[in-house]
């Protein structure tokens, strides 16, 4: 459970990047995008972020999995906090 706040911080970190890149992209299109097209671009941005986060997120949760130990999970957490500057 110690890793729960890190999951939240990592999600927020990635979402900030996603929204800022998405806005830049939408600005280039202006108003001539249908709802379906906006949806496709939004899905692209979510798809990339979610698939990239899947591995790290999984390795921040260790309950119920025998192969992953608590100490390894905490090491993953510390590495992620360093690498994404999530300490604050």
């Amino acid at each position, binding site marked *: *459970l110690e890793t*729960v*706040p890190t*999951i*939240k911080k990592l*999600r*927020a970190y990635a979402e900030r990047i996603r929204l800022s890149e998405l806005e830049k992209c939408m600005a280039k299109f202006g108003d001539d995008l249908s709802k379906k097209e906006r949806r496709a671009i939004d*899905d692209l941005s*979510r*798809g990339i972020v*979610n*698939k990239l*986060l*899947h591995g790290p*997120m*999984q390795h921040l*949760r260790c*309950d119920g999995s025998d192969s992953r130990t608590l100490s390894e999970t905490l090491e993953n957490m510390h590495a992620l906090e360093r690498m994404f500057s999530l300490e604050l």
Partner: protein
Amino acid sequence: PRKERLVTNLKTGKNFLRNQDPEKAYAEFKAALELAQGLGDPIEEKKAARGLGASLQRQGKYREAIKYHSMVLAISEREGEVSGNTEAYGAIADCYTELGDLEKAAKFYDKYIARLETD
């Protein structure tokens, strides 16, 4: 007509959220939710519910926010269409984290993580 008002409410709500004005955003999403329910449009209903949840989160009202994010899951259940569920699980978990209920947060993050690889 009502459909256009709904779209405008959602868009205005998003802009208020972006500009750090969650109270005004809340009002827009609230109006959007009622219109979407009246029109029987589940996709827009989910967007309004998610917007309400986000607006409440920004105001620190985490318990109320959980209600609206859970509404997204309920609409998905009702309609047999799961779009928005990944985000809802994540947002509910974020709220429980803020409330200090790490057990419940972990439960919802697990659902969130399980869905990250799907589309």
